[in-house]
């Protein structure tokens, strides 16, 4: 399959595999599935799943491939296996809107942390290694807390040492998140009117579990941590709030408002990536149009045509869509897992 610039529609009924196709691009970009387990990608009765693509990024061509099997994952760039995830991620940049993303605003803090981690990681590989380092020390500390059932001074001293390491590892993560949210708010500001002509505005607030004096705070929580056998404070407990006109979207936003907020945020992320990396990410939109009205569909397609990014959009049919917006788009049909390009589409399709 070859995809160029501009908008690509992937059309198919549910269950024909159009989401799988989008997911394969997601996996290739992020080296993991957005489902809970990577193993669901493997077809029934097969040993592994493999996704491959040649991508043009920063004026260079890269052959990327991801192999996922029960024994693990292999991320390959130009035929070379990458040992570190941070060396792999970033070669194919994506912004995605998935049905699961509808949970971000009202779902658990974990889902919000994951959502933002994905974008921070794509824009800065140091973030991936800093976060990985933090998570590793956190595992060590939690394991120690589990084993500390009888008080002894050796374990207390080790807890001190590992807590200092954890605080040290937490600092760059917290700083990165703080700065990232400040910046994304600036990009969000420029996108307020993407869908809405009303005076609506959005803002995201970062809620760090510990903001300053991380070591001191962590050390003041020993009692709680020992009683619960786990680390209760730190970046792994951070959260983010979404505001819609100064009210918390969590409490007040309707389903439609949440959808527009997330889509606006996605486009703000695309603009931020463009600003940082000098090119737009691939924009993946899974079944987004069915829930948008004509005006919003139109605005989204206009925006995507204007920025000339590569966008790949799944939908069950084009009939429901505003036909005026469908000039210059490429259309593919998916059935039974196979995908085929429609030769001509719209009034003035380019060949």
């Amino acid at each position: 399959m070859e995809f160029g610039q501009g908008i690509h529609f992937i059309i198919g009924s549910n269950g024909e595999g159009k989401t799988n196709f989008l997911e394969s691009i997601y996996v290739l970009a992020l080296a993991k599935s957005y489902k809970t387990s990577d193993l669901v990608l493997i077809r029934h009765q097969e040993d592994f799943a493999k996704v491959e693509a040649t991508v043009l990024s920063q004026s260079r061509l890269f052959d990327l491939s991801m192999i996922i099997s029960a024994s693990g994952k292999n991320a390959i760039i130009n035929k070379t296996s990458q040992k570190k995830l941070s060396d792999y991620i970033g070669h194919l940049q994506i912004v995605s809107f998935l049905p699961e993303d509808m949970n971000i605003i009202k779902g658990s803090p974990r889902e919000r942390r994951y959502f933002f981690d994905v974008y921070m990681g794509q824009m800065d590989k140091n973030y991936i290694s800093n976060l990985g380092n933090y998570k590793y020390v956190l595992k060590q500390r939690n394991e120690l807390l589990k084993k500390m059932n009888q008080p002894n001074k050796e374990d207390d001293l080790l807890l001190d040492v590992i807590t200092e390491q954890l605080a040290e590892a937490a600092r760059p993560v917290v700083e990165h998140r703080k700065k990232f949210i400040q910046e994304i708010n600036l990009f969000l500001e420029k996108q307020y009117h993407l869908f809405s002509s009303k005076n609506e505005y959005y803002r995201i607030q970062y809620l760090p579990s510990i903001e300053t004096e991380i070591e001191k705070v962590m050390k003041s929580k020993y009692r709680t941590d020992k009683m619960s056998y786990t680390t209760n404070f730190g970046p792994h407990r951070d959260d983010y709030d979404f505001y819609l006109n100064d009210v918390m979207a969590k409490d007040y936003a309707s389903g439609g408002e949440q959808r527009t907020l997330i889509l606006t945020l996605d486009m703000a992320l695309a603009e931020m990536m463009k600003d940082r990396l000098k090119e737009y990410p691939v924009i993946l939109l899974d079944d987004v149009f069915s829930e948008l009205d004509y005006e919003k569909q139109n605005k989204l397609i206009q925006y995507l045509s204007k920025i000339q990014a590569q966008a790949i959009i799944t939908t069950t049919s084009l009939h429901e869509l505003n036909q005026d917006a469908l000039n210059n788009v490429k259309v593919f049909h998916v059935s039974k897992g196979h995908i085929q390009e429609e030769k001509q589409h719209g009034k003035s399709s380019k060949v």
Partner: protein
Amino acid sequence: MQYPKALEDLISEFMKYPGVGRKTAERYAMFSVIDLKNESINDFSQALISAKEKIRPCNICHHLTDKETCDICSDGTRDNSKIMVLETTKDVFSIEKSGTYRGLYHVLNGALSPLNGIGPNELNLVSLWKRLEKDDVKEVILATSATQEGEATAQYIKRVLREVEVLVTRIGYGVPVGSNLEYADDQTLNKAIENRRVF
């Protein structure tokens, strides 16, 4: 096709070695039965048994030795004002091979890692504290690896030694040394020791 049982048994013995997979183990097993003379096989098995019998940790520094006390600890010409603390006995060989360090060693036998079930009591720490009580040691050089575990171990030792009158230094890990002594060449190792800093 299956190998005869005796050959299969030998293959599974070789596969117990680190870095030896099925294919290599098969090659070793074939080599043993086809190419090696009875005499060599005898020498090999004797060497295995006597190494296992005779080699044990030194009663002072825990470096492997075939004596009660290792050659380094019993060498009167070594500088006994310095003890270099290492994770493994392999690290001792690396430093010795690089050639310039003339002090003594202390092998911890690992690094602190709750995830690997290694706490302070699993390491040779008490014997280190004891050595610092009686010997006239002026400097403890922490040469644990630059991993999270190695750093935690160095920090831990430093904390305990706060109450002891001894200079605590950490070897200078730089980009060229990486995080593991095993993979550093002699020159970078010497540099790392030379560039140690007060910790």
